[in-house]
């Protein structure tokens, strides 16, 4: 960036330096108090010095709203980036990112996040702590699973997950009531019901914990070591409404299919307390097709109300 930029253009609000071969953006940026939009796509940014030192103290940290760094060479999000507390829109599409730092939650004003076309393998649950996030693009990456916490993104309207390595989705995805668009094509989504992926028998501690919870055996902190009191508070309820059981660490992961909008079937992960605890309509020996179909009926009515438009394969 040319020296003296802030002296010549002190009122600069929008700066577009895309396609200029920039390898770093220096301190000239720090003295632009009115800058709210910085477009620097298709450059050679990604190394040290890409973003200027001292960013957190500069007015830019509070004033910048839109930052486009797509088409550069970032292999990780520079920590300085996470200082831009006023940022509403961030694009790092087409870079070389391998992951998303948990500190992304620092960008608490973020509404638009474009990370398509990178090498991202996993999504940190902290991403869900962005309360204003409306548009999340993660297409064309190497993502294998979605953390269930992502369902806490209450403002999410559009989620792009196409061309990844997803085989299933967490059932919590049904909680995204404002989601209008969801793209899932180009993922190796499991098409047929897969039963009993792995089952590790419960430990004695787990069995005891289950008994205490399901039989409502009274206990007080004075009765038990603190670690066990904490353990008992972590009991999860079995999603099978007819079971009413609880589980701690030992559970069966089953992939069930939910008929979205009555038209599409999506594989969603369910946790059940044991292989015998399955659909309320069937016994353990029931064939897989009817099991998934009967489950899909109750889920379908929930899902139909929740999902408006689904862009599927």
């Amino acid at each position, binding site marked *: 960036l040319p020296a003296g930029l802030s002296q010549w253009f002190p009122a600069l609000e929008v700066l577009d330096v895309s396609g200029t071969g920039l390898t770093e953006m220096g301190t000239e940026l720090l003295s632009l108090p009115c800058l709210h939009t910085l477009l620097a796509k298709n450059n050679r940014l990604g190394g040290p010095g890409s973003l200027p030192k001292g960013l957190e103290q500069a007015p830019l940290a509070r004033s910048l709203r839109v930052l486009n760094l797509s088409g550069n060479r970032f292999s990780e999000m520079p920590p300085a980036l996470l200082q831009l507390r006023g940022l509403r829109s961030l694009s790092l599409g087409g870079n070389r990112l391998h992951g998303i730092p948990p500190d992304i939650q620092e960008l608490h004003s973020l509404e638009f996040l474009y990370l398509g076309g990178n090498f991202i393998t996993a999504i940190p649950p902290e991403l869900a702590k962005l309360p204003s996030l409306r548009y999340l*693009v993660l*297409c064309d990456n190497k993502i294998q699973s979605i953390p269930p916490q992502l369902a806490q993104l209450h403002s999410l309207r559009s989620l792009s997950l196409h061309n990844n390595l997803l085989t299933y989705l967490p059932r919590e995805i049904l909680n995204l009531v404002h989601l209008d668009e969801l793209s899932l094509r180009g993922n190796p989504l499991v098409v047929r019901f897969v039963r009993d992926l792995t089952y590790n028998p419960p430990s004695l501690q787990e069995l005891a914990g289950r008994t205490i919870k399901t039989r409502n055996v009274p206990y007080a902190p004075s009765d038990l070591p603190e670690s066990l009191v904490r353990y008992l508070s972590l009991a999860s309820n079995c999603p099978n409404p007819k079971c009413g059981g609880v589980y701690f660490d030992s559970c069966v992961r089953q992939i069930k299919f939910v008929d979205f909008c009555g038209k599409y079937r999506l594989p969603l992960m369910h946790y059940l307390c044991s292989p015998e605890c399955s659909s309320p309509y069937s016994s353990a020996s029931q064939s897989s097709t009817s099991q998934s179909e009967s489950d899909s009926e109750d889920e379908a009515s929930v899902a139909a109300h929740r999902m408006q438009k689904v862009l599927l394969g």
Partner: protein
Amino acid sequence: MEQPVQTETWKARSLEELIRILHQIFAEDKVSVDEVQALMESYESNPEEWLQYAKFDQYRYTRNLVDNGNGKFNLMILCWGEGHGSSIHDHTDSHCFMKILQGNLKETLFEWPEKKGNGEMTKKSERVLRENQCAYINDSIGLHRVENISHTEPAVSLHLYSPPFDTCNTFDQRTGHKHKVTMTFYSQFGERTVC
């Protein structure tokens, strides 16, 4: 539309001229697909001429009506943000011409699914269309998905549909199941349509 009745080599020197010639062509009883495709391709995209119709939406691609061809055709501009794509769809027995005005669009062709098919749809071919290229499709050729696969550049395309239609079917690639949808315009004649 049938076989060409006369071979013309049109050159549209502006968007306005393109529209004028289209009106002329479609006023006839018989219209040639090749003629329309060549005409569309002959227009060299000039953003100044179509910028007023190119309204982008953050979340998905937009359809912006430019001209309604006296009921014979619809001419519209589609704006595709980075990563925006369509579902697999048919063209309700109409002819569809798609010319790239800016950027690139990937077109993936699919076979029609079997009657009671319950398997993955078959991909026929795919290609990336460059600026000023014009593609053509109709239901007898197959189904397609169009997407802007760029993560850095938006794309703009000019579409002609004849006869005009406002519903089509979208298809689930994994199962071939279809679903009828109604299409709407984001803007008409340069004005944002609020619905």
